[in-house]
């Protein structure tokens, strides 16, 4: 009986999906006591339908933690991922929906983030990407635009960092790296030559998870700018930003 229902649902789904899109939607069997179908992808949207355990639903699309499903009776609605974590395919295999898990904190590889802050009195906007070598060690590259009172510039660095307690909600980290800084005088001032110098940094900061994949990060860095003259320039900088991992 069960198999007949599943097959019928699958068949109905295939027939129905055909005109809408070429991709065939995946069908799963509900294992939770029931599914609540919301009218939109958010917790505040009203529940318009309920699907019981054992029924088959088609997975149409996913947006953040919400999955749009179609029931056997052709009702469509959005279900939270947490209610669909225990589902089976028609063949009885377990289905795991894509999305963040707590383990992802230490299992992910790529991170991307943006931030803003201060670079020795100049404003700075930073874009960063990092690749984790293991739980706590990562390679990182940053590109920053600098906006000073008398000059503007760009800063690009690459480095290596260490997260002390990657499994903690808030963890300190340190990093070192090197790169280039390019500075050109502001257009409204008298002409002065633009210059490009090598730079190195050492930094430390704190990062804290706001959700399983999203974290806030604050970092202090001390840069050493290697000048053409004998005196190297020391610059203190800090940034605050957010990071997301994939």
């Amino acid at each position, binding site marked *: 009986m069960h198999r007949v229902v599943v097959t019928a649902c699958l068949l109905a789904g295939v027939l129905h999906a055909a005109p809408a899109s070429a991709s065939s939607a995946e069908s799963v069997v509900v294992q939770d006591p029931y599914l609540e179908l919301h009218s939109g992808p958010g917790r505040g949207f009203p529940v318009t339908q309920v699907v019981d355990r054992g029924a088959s639903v088609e997975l149409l699309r996913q947006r953040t933690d919400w999955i749009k499903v179609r029931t056997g009776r052709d009702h469509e609605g959005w279900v939270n991922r947490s209610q669909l974590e225990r589902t089976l395919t028609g063949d009885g295999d377990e289905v795991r929906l894509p999305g963040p898990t707590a383990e992802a904190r230490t299992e992910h590889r790529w991170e991307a983030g943006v931030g803003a802050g201060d670079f020795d009195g100049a404003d700075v*906007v930073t874009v960063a990407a990092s690749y984790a070598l293991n739980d706590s060690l990562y390679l990182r590259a940053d590109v920053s635009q600098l906006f000073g009172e008398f000059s503007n510039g760009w800063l690009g660095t690459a480095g290596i960092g260490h997260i002390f307690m990657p499994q903690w909600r808030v963890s300190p980290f340190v990093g070192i790296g090197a790169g280039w800084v390019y500075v050109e005088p502001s257009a409204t001032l008298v002409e002065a030559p633009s210059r490009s110098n090598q730079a190195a940094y050492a930094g430390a900061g704190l990062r804290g998870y706001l959700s399983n994949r999203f974290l806030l990060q604050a970092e202090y860095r001390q840069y050493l700018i290697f000048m053409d003259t004998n005196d190297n320039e020391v610059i203190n900088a800090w940034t605050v930003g957010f990071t*997301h991992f994939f």
Partner: protein
Amino acid sequence: MDRRLHALLLNAAVAAATLASPGTARAEDPVGASPGTPQVVEPRVARREVKAPAIDTENFEGGLFVGTVSIEDFGSSLLYGARIAYHFTEDVFAEATLGSAKAGNTSYEDLSGSAQLLTDSERQYTYYDLALGWNALPGESFFGSRRAMPSAVYFTLGAGSTRFGGDDHFTVTLGSGYRLLMNDWLAAHLDVRNQMFDSDLLGKDKLTQNLQFSIGLTAFF
């Protein structure tokens, strides 16, 4: 004293018995399994294949917008640009925006007739903005009695750069918008932004407020 010694000896005896018995047999086993007894219940570890369903994940949103920007001291101009957003959760998203406009004349330039403060290329107003957005008021908008579309009023806070007057300016942008999902993947936007940056173009350093209003279309992918 006597009782304590008794208890100590008893404990030692139990401990010795526990250690002596092989792994499966435990002191409290009611069956009293002796070494060599076959395991009564064999664990059935059925390895199930965990499958990732072929589901379309749509957390990116990209599109174009057009509107008007009021560049402080330089009048209002046509604004156009592109944006891409990534939705972390149903509440929070990140958004990168690129925009461009051509500034008009200051009142002084118009009145004096010929004096030009900026060259043609310096009048080009281009910016990028990296922002964090918050869907503060999600909900549904109703059109008549038959159609309900998901919508959200959101706020953004961003930082970026504006190139204007031949100079790059660090820019902080505050914004608010309304997103209306017309179907599962197409959204219309109404946006108001205030881009704030320091400028000394007219001689004195001041914080300029550059308000913009735009409409846009985006697609989720």
